[in-house]
């Protein structure tokens, strides 16, 4: 087996391009001279009941990855039931499917993995396994989705309660949550992914059953499958998801509009303050999406869309500096995180505000725009290097108005972004700030 890759210290992105001034060499396809190569060919079909199946074959190895998007996400959690999405998804994984073996056991015995991710507008179950195992494992997943074992709710609730309590101590989670409380007021996405300890403690099996009923709506369900996609795998997906009920899922609630600047402060047991400055932003299917991706690159992205998503197998970051663009929510949010060390936060905030003012201004150099586009393109392509992320991107594309061609359209749109686009988008969105601050707790507190 291979040895372990070096970890090394993580690079801390800064507000690079805006503040640096000098530009580096811009190679290759930079200015759009060379055509952008497409992703491997994909196919999309819609079952009679409305379920969308998107597939993209790449048969290097006998592996398959499938993202199953079901239209029940964080935003759809009822008032007072924050945490039910996490509990319901975990119960699905803990549901017995082959004798006493749970779905998770069954997949692990085959060497595969089954995880879930809570998105603003859906829950994603991700199954990765050998191509030959896929038909029976996707059957197991379908069984668990259809009949989650509610006797597991009490045990899962205890685990979720612990997670919710721990997450509340994470300063990054705290600032991100404060932003969401303002930007998504009136929806379930305004609450912590794991739920509030107070609400989690009150969630009953009947609440979980009601929420998990949302997993059965064909309209809004997308199965995106990549890797060694065989006819048997596609047949299995058609067979298993062709029985979903055709009724559409209830629409997700819309958040209240933001009319003024907000500043929210909290205290945590941290050595240094954290600040998040947030703006409303276009979502991924907006015509302004590509321009906002370039702005994110210019601000110095600290990570990709998955950096703050709540998944069953990845802990939340305890260190994140730079821009984070949450574009899966409606509307999206552009959030810049700063702090966590003894940096001069006041100066950093002033630098950011100066940089954003510059984006809104008239004098963006062509070189600056080119650099931002290169970085945005690179980030976009590099965000799809695993089967999991390729399936995620394929599924998001299938849900777009353009269908699966979307994943190849986004790079073209990034390439077409102009200085005028940057200015227009910055002026439209980067105006009313929400500032969330986490300060070190004093002894008296």
């Amino acid at each position, binding site marked *: *087996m*291979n*040895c*372990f*890759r*070096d*970890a*090394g*210290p993580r690079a801390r992105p800064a507000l690079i391009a805006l503040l640096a001034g000098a530009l*580096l*060499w*811009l*190679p*290759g*396809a930079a200015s759009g001279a*060379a*055509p*952008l*190569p*497409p*992703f*491997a060919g994909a196919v999309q079909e819609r079952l009679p009941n409305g379920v969308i199946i998107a597939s*993209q*074959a*790449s*048969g*290097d*190895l*006998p*592996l398959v*990855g499938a993202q199953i998007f079901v239209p029940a996400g964080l935003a759809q959690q009822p008032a007072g039931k924050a945490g039910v999405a996490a509990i319901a998804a975990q119960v699905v994984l803990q549901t017995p499917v082959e004798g006493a073996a749970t779905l998770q056991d069954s997949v*692990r*015995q*085959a*060497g*595969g*993995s089954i995880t879930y991710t809570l998105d603003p507008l859906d829950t994603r179950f991700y199954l*990765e*396994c*050998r*191509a030959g*195992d896929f038909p029976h494992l996707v059957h197991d997943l379908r069984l668990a989705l259809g009949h989650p074992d509610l006797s597991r709710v009490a045990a899962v609730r205890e685990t979720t309660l612990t997670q919710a309590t721990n997450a509340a101590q994470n300063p990054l989670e705290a600032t991100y949550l404060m932003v969401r409380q303002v930007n998504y007021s009136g929806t379930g996405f305004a609450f912590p992914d794991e739920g509030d300890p107070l609400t989690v403690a009150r969630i009953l099996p009947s609440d979980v059953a009601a929420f998990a009923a949302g997993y059965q709506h064909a309209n809004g369900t997308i199965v995106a499958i*990549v*890797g*060694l996609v065989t006819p048997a795998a596609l047949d299995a997906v058609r067979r298993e998801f062709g029985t979903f009920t055709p009724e559409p899922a209830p629409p997700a609630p819309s958040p209240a509009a933001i009319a003024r600047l907000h500043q929210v402060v909290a205290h945590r047991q941290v050595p240094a303050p954290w600040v998040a400055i947030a703006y409303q932003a276009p979502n991924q299917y907006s015509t302004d999406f590509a321009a906002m991706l370039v702005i994110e*690159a210019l601000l110095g992205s600290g990570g990709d869309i998955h950096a703050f998503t709540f998944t069953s197998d990845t802990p939340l970051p305890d260190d994140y500096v730079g821009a984070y663009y949450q574009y899966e929510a409606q509307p999206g949010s552009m959030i810049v995180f700063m702090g966590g060390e003894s940096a001069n936060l006041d100066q950093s905030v002033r630098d950011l505000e100066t940089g954003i003012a510059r984006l809104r201004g008239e004098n963006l150099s062509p070189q600056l725009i080119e*650099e931002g586009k*290169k*970085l*945005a*393109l*690179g*980030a976009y*392509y*590099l965000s*799809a*290097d*695993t*089967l999991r992320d*390729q399936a995620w991107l394929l599924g998001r594309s299938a849900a777009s108005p353009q269908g699966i061609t979307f994943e190849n359209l986004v790079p073209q749109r990034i390439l077409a972004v102009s200085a005028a686009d940057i200015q227009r988008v910055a002026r439209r969105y980067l105006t009313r700030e929400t500032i969330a601050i986490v300060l070190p707790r004093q002894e008296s507190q």
Partner: protein
Amino acid sequence: MRRSVGGGLAALFFCWAVLCAALGIAPRAAWAGAAVIGDVGPQTVGTQLASGLTVVARKSGAAPLAALEFWVRCPANGYDGMQPGIARLAAFALADHKPPVGPSLRDAVRAAGGRLGISVYPEATQFSVVAPAYDMSNLLSALLGAVLHPAIDQASFESGRTRLAAVQVAAEEGVDQVLRDALFAQLFSAGPLHDSTYGNPISLRAMTLNAVAGFTTTAYVPGNEIVVVTGAIDPASVSQRVAQFGMPSGGRVPAMPASPQNQQAAAPRALHPLATGVTGIALGWTGPPISDERAATAMDFWSDYLTDPDSGVLVRAVRTADDGAAFSGQFITLRNPGVFFVAVSGQRLDTTAMAGVLRAAVANSVGHRMSDAQFVQARDAFVTHLLRTMQTDEALADNYGWYFAQGALSYSPSATGPDLSGDYFARVASLTPDYVLSVAKRYLMAAPSVVILPAGDQSSRGVSQ
């Protein structure tokens, strides 16, 4: 072959090369002096150029990405064994060196929106670039320019020193790294496997520009090196492009210094406590050399059975004993011997009790033969775990590089396809319950080397190993 590669002459060459390989014919490469090497996977071109440089190019993946890697066999602590960290400093300096025309490798990758990784192992250094495929050509030139004609000036030397100082600090804070380094220092009495690849502040202070430049002159010779390119590429044209890059003249391939085993390795060794207060324990056993491919594969299987994060026997034993403890473990395939290690750490870990848990779980695992059904299930799971770790272009390239560095390129697990062809998976298919048990008993019933990271008192904290 599932897909054709590229068009025109390149595709013709590729099909011809694959046909020749399938028929057992050693074809002459399309460019002067290059020789096609053995089967290294489908949609893959493997060549050794006249200069001695090995090149593997493979079309893979669905995303328009490419992974470009360069590996050079070299001792991380220098050819005299007296300069721990020199390979890392050299690699950092090469990546930061600004040539007369164009940017440094690091800047070129960043400007392209790509990702540069530098990993230094005891006996090899790796440069890895992942970037959109449309920039592959430019970045390949930048990478080859940096490493095939290694140049270090005062500015890049200073930059490399600064980076090395930073990663030394980070490595000292990583309990896993500390335990692993200490375990290898315990298992090997000298040589590259003995010293931390990060070196230490004293060795860093002693390094000079001349020493680092001399190290690269000695180590970075084509016969020591491999270029691996994977992703949305045309393998034949990429290979040809590498061949056409201005090659240095051959150069003598230096011998890798030996890493003799420590005869007193079984005596437990206690480390200085870390400032973080984390405690830990690591156990290590020597295993089969890479030349014994079947036994090395059996140890890979056994390692997966014991250490898989979801289902490993040792992982479950550790969780039962201490749910908050962090676990890592792996069999590392090396020239001779391989090493199987496990490490456990935590804030309130009882290292004595954990040592007992680990030893008992290992002893129990080798104490009985798996049933045929259990074995088949475990072997299938092992294969799936392995395939999942190789699913990215970069991971495929990693495994080619690692096995090249260990002198067994065609044994690389990457040299396979959807049908699980290739040397490695043929070895997997040959495993039986009796054989894997016999290998496990041969190596894991020996007394392990043990290193302990104790809690210590507050006054002694801050002094790290």
